[in-house]
């Protein structure tokens, strides 16, 4: 299907999800560092 309006992202972009069968939990970042991307 084409012609869909791009979705406007809302919420926390780092919330847990499963991608390609892998559902890893983000590792908490040490103090002062950003949370690493999954």
């Amino acid at each position: 299907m084409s012609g869909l309006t791009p979705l406007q992202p809302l919420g926390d972009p780092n919330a847990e999800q499963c991608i390609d069968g892998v559902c890893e939990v983000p590792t908490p970042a040490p103090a002062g560092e950003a949370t690493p991307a999954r």
Partner: protein
Amino acid sequence: MTSQNAPIKVDIWSDIACPWCYIGKRKFEAGSGLFAGAGEDRDVEVEYHSFELSPDTPVDFEGGEADFLARHKGIPAEQAQQMLDRVTSIAASVGLHYDYDNLKHTNTVLAHEAAHFAKEHGKQLEFTERLMKAYFVEGRHVGRVDELASLGAEVGLDPEELTRALEAHTYVNDVREDEQLAASYGIQGVPFFVIDGKYGVSGAQDADTFAQVLEQVWHLRNEENTEVPA
């Protein structure tokens, strides 16, 4: 323009075998409850859509979830077990008691077909919950026709009619259409929530975040409806 009083439509893409989808379902339900309790005219309509995380999974996989992650995804067994332990702990925090020791890892396309049968018969929400509980909590095999028919009967579906539909793959095209729509939206992971067809929320957000997002969309709707044309 969307009617101010129409329910906010939330289309949810998820897989039965997705641990974050069941956790996200609980958190979304809590968040939409908070939103609904915040005032009048705050209704939410939910529709689930199919997404297969691992369509290459065999129906009868020999081994546990950690074995699957090690063999099919190349994740070291020890790391895979740690991942499962963490997700089990987080599931427990929302009242879900995942039992990975007894979980029957399987291909989920047939379960998605059954979910479309349930949708056509007005039982999608009940059956989606029943499927996820069966898979993550009860160790049921959701890749088999007889198990799906039994689960369907529990929510009021006709097991014989469901069996016939599954054996004929009557709803497999509905599964594919959902997956094509997900691809059109650019959805790569689940759970994924499309709100009013305009806003995208990815992952198992906290209940408060879901409530805030719904409130935000509700206010944006109101602004649209009160704008005076130039």
